[in-house]
């Protein structure tokens, strides 16, 4: 006769042995695990030779009073064993792959998706920023007359500032366009401005490629009364040889705000908002006095270096600042040219190179890359 205590101790040993065997099966390599689990199942739950059955065989050797307690203990172990094995079998079944499984490491079919040109991305970003700030976005003619590109911008024929922008001229002047800023923009005729010093000039022959989008300031103000709040974006042309930072065609964004009481501080607030939108919150801007014939006062505007945040690095030539645009308060002579009264309104204007922004944003070291249209370059930009 066996005693219940002896057999309880035996169950405990079995339980210990199962835990170890299960641990060994779990630790087996993934490929060996199914076989290990099958062996465990046979060894423990087999009807004839299984270890649970082994234990049960001791039942008759106990006094009848102890048999119920022993049976409960064996059944408890059986439940532990069966549920542990069932759990693992279920887990194994979940990972089993069907026969027609695909090799998920093979390359997918690339959908035909085009990539946007980085200049187009910056251009749209700038448009979005200023649209959000309540600006009208305009485009304008790329072939211009001397009056709109220079003279009305306070750069008469002999002005030394004309040297600042080497101009590309047409071999043969073209007749002036019949429309204005844009045929779609037609508005009621402007109010009579008798008493102003506006020059009465008929349409001029087109002689040159615009050197800046500032020409659009004149075209717009000629046709619309203040207030004005616009940006003009598009290609401009200068006789610059190609090098790392120059191309004979590049893109500009011109901003113009005219109204009563517009100040240089308003310009600073506006450009700060733009800089933060383009380069991230907290981007500082700095105004440095400069000279442009069509603004007074004039300022070059720097943003804190977007790489080093002002600490100094090769990108900013260790100054902590990057020049991004020229700006200023609209020169009274410009207002006079378009028939605005400079004692009534003031305004600010700025002109920014789109390429410059793109080069800074994406660390493009050579401006010529924008015009090669190499797909290896373009495909680095998002859709």
């Amino acid at each position, binding site marked *: 006769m066996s005693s219940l205590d002896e057999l309880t101790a035996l169950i405990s040993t079995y339980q210990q042995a199962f835990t170890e065997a299960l641990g060994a099966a779990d630790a087996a390599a993934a490929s060996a695990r199914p076989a290990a689990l099958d062996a465990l199942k046979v060894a423990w739950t087999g009807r004839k030779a299984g270890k649970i059955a082994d234990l049960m065989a001791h039942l008759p050797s106990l006094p009848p009073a102890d048999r119920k307690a022993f049976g409960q203990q064996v059944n408890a172990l059986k439940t532990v064993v069966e549920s542990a094995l069932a759990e693992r079998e279920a887990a194994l079944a979940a990972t089993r792959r069907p026969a027609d499984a695909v090799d998920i490491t093979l390359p997918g079919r690339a959908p035909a998706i085009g990539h946007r040109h980085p200049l187009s991305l910056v251009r749209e970003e700038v448009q979005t920023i200023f649209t959000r700030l309540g600006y009208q976005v305009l485009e304008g003619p790329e072939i211009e007359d001397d009056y709109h590109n220079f003279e009305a911008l306070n750069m008469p024929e002999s002005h030394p500032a004309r040297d600042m922008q080497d101009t590309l001229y047409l071999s043969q002047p073209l007749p002036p366009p019949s429309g204005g800023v844009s045929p779609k923009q037609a508005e009621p005729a402007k109010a009579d401005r008798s008493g102003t010093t506006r020059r009465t000039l008929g349409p001029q022959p087109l002689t040159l490629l615009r050197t800046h989008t500032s020409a659009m300031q004149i075209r717009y103000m000629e046709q619309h009364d203040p207030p004005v709040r616009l940006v003009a974006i598009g290609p401009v042309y200068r006789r610059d040889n190609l090098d790392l930072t120059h191309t004979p065609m590049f893109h500009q964004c011109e901003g113009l705000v005219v109204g009563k009481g517009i100040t240089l501080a308003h310009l600073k607030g506006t450009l700060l908002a733009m800089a933060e939108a383009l380069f991230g919150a907290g981007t500082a801007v700095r105004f*440095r006095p400069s000279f442009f014939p069509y603004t007074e006062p004039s300022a070059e505007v720097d943003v804190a270096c977007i790489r080093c945040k002002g600490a100094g690095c090769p990108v900013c030539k260790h100054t902590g600042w990057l020049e991004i645009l020229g700006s200023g308060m609209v020169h009274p002579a410009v207002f006079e040219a378009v028939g605005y009264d400079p004692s009534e309104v003031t305004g600010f204007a700025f002109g920014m190179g789109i390429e410059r922004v793109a080069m800074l944003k994406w660390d493009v070291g050579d401006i010529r890359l924008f015009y090669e249209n190499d797909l290896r370059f373009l495909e680095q930009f998002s859709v």
Partner: protein
Amino acid sequence: MKVLYSWLRDFVDVEDGPAEIGRRLSLRGLALEGIEPAPPGEEPPGRAPIDGDAVLDFDVTANRPDCMSVVGIAREIAAVYRLPLRLPSPDASGHLRAAALTAVDQATFSVALEAPDLCPRYVGAAATVAVGPSPGWMQRRLTALGVRPISNVVDITNYVLLELGQPMHAFDHTRLAGNAIVVRAARPGEALTTLDSKARTLAPSMLVIADATRAAAVGGVMGGLDSEVRADTTRIVFESAWFAPGSVRATSKALGLRSEASMRFERGADQTGAARGMARACALLEMIGAGTADGTMVDATARPYVPRVVPLTHAHVEGLLGMSVPVVEVERILDALGFTAIADASRTAWQVRVPGWRPDIARPEDLVEEVGRHHGFEHLPATFPPVFQAPPPSDPRIARDAAARRGMLALGFSEAISFAFIDAAAAAPFAAGEPAITLANPLSETFAVMRPSVLAGIIDAVSHNRRHGRRDVRLFEIATAFAARGERRSLAAAWTGAAGGDHWSGGRRDVDFFDVKGVVEHIGAALGVPLAFTLVEPDYLVAGRAAGVVAGARQVGVCGLLSPVLADARGIPRADDVYVLELDLDAITATAPPGATRVVPLPRFPAVVRDVSLLVDDTLSGATVRDTIQRAAPSTLVSLREFDRYQGRGVPAGKVSVSLRLTFRADDRTLTDDEVGAAMTAVLAATRTALGAEQR
């Protein structure tokens, strides 16, 4: 403009070193371009050498001729550091001395101003000299600023130019025929050999300094070789004058001759500086032992200089800048820069007299800038302009171009941006018989002609990518095309290589005509304008693989296979098939302005689909078959499309089997088999009668 730190210190006792001065001036309108170590050498008598002496190079803007001098930059430094400016004067001791010259009407020479508009003031003074090298300290200063020492007399003229910004010239007195200086317009064809040994032919628009018989110098530009100071010269006449900027600029440009003098005169020299420069030159002559001035000067003035007076109000200063600047600060800045501001009783407005060296100051706004920049733009608050009204709509081309761009990107085309000017050969195939718009001064022949078609740039972009090993290329560009009748916005695209299926699983197919036609149809849909096709075969496309694109009744574009000859000429491999398209976006939107999309209710009754295969002549166009069916079918035919074309086994030669899918539906009822059957009978009868089609 380069300046020597130690030279600046002659005029202002600034304690900061060169780097800090450069940094601070950069924020006041004089951008520092660079700093170099100063050349070693002597200092002027009585001046101790300065540790860390350096040459500062400033970028002087075109409006500031006064800063093309050491004194001009020293004046800015004095204003920034709130220090006094020390100027050369008759009673100053040491090397800042200016001579006290007596003005006389006639000296050992005479001066006549015959062109008072171009030269209203001319100061001449004679001296006896012993020509030799100038002292080491003067040579060092000139060299540091990039001017080559020549001789003591010539070096003095350059020294005064650099120091005060007053260009000077020295004539050999004995070479001035008749002891006369005549400032006059050049005679037609008058000849002069300038100091650079070049023979020049002058025009009457140019100003010359002549003696009694001939020209001796081009006024404000360069002296003549014949009257130059030589080693054996013993008597000289110094010239210190003011020449009108426009004339000097035009003359310098016409002669292709720029000099340190012309660069200053053409921007505007100091109208009050001629006598000051002369006094300085005569003092230097004696200081360096180069000679003795006669002590007199002929100060010829055709018109007395009247200083400009510009009114300024405090309200204007603060109103334009948008920051507060105290009245005393306004007055301090103007005073430091050499302006004389006379306040009104309330001290809120001034009459400001402009010094002769500031030709750029003509309006109150110019003074506001002076106050603003020296008070410091760093004090500007960042405020925001008030919005007065909702902005008018933006240029409608922007949204339209964006829609076309989205369409092209969705079709797998990447966006290109090309130069608007191309070479004449690239432009020619697209000119359509119109004269090209050419540039008068192109950078090179590569950039000589404004593109008549945006395709030209796209083709070159394809070529670039093919030459860099890219087999499959899809590119588009939305840009301006140029013609004498005006600018137009064009969408151009090119497609070569795979049309799809370029994958390890197979199914690769190369692009064909119907791919590019599909692109055009998609863009039409994107713009809300139905586009149709017509037989147009321009020379730059392959006949039989080309079509014109039509909106309304107007041709608005083309699509098709690029001529291999043209592709080859642009460097594209001959075996490539490059399909292209170009659409005139302005013409498309002008023909049919995009309307708002309106939703069509979903059908309430089911459709009935019937497929039919017809044997027809293979010369018959798809459009003819479709038109015949459309006309014969009742209005319940809502869709008709080809889904197969077959030639080969079972189809007689010269015939093609066309399979069409017809979809019938009515809005108010479910169609019965009888109704659809009757419709199909009518359709088949019509194709048999009109086209001789047999049903297969």
